[in-house]
């Protein structure tokens, strides 16, 4: 997993560099863009439904 620092321009976060070419998934965690690559455990994508749907 490659950690890519975010930069803030006028209050908008964006990655400070391109993601690696073998990136499988990216998560912005509030500070950095985390680029997951082959061999990394990918984080589960959470989706909740209201009222147990």
């Amino acid at each position: 997993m490659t950690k890519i620092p975010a930069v803030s321009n006028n209050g908008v976060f964006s990655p400070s560099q391109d993601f690696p070419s073998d990136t499988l998934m990216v998560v912005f965690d509030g500070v950095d863009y985390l680029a997951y690559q082959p061999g990394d455990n990918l984080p589960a994508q959470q989706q909740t439904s209201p009222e147990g749907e």
Partner: protein
Amino acid sequence: MLVDQNVVSGFPTTITLSQLPAASTVPNYTSVRISDVGTGGGSEWYAFNGEWYPRGGSCRLAASAVAVAVTGTTAKTSAATIAIPALLGLNGRLRVSAAMSVTNNANAKNGLIEFGGQTVMTGALTSIATTCGTFDIANRNSASSQISTSRGANFGQGGGSSVALLATTVNTAVAQNLVFSFTPASAGDTATLESYTVEIIK
């Protein structure tokens, strides 16, 4: 001469976007391959009546299905930024396809797609799990006047509606960015750009 040097080999001359001459300065049907415009190692373009046209009528500028998830923040956060070259001309259009998923609750996740800093799609993304769609941003015989097939909210397409189509005034005679972003109301929620495609059609 910059172009058509490789016509014997059957391939047009390869140049970068910064080397592309004004179409008005080369003969009609002059062909080039622009190595840094388009997925798959570039794209072929030809000059006609002062504009460059993608061979085959379209050029896929960017595409990705690598999920980019935004969480842990309430700040506006870019999920993808696509460079749009100044190749739309007077009547070219961008075709944007995108799919997003979000935490399905009542909190706003505020998905936004902006072209040249102007909104072309926005949605609070509340009480839904996913949203997806395709829309065009079309120049109206002017490089600085566009009409969209999006009504702006949640891709708002298809059928009849009382909502006006989205109009923008982006100067496409210069390079612009198309930016996908989220601004979650709650840092505990997640908003994800699941996939996108951006094409020039003309």
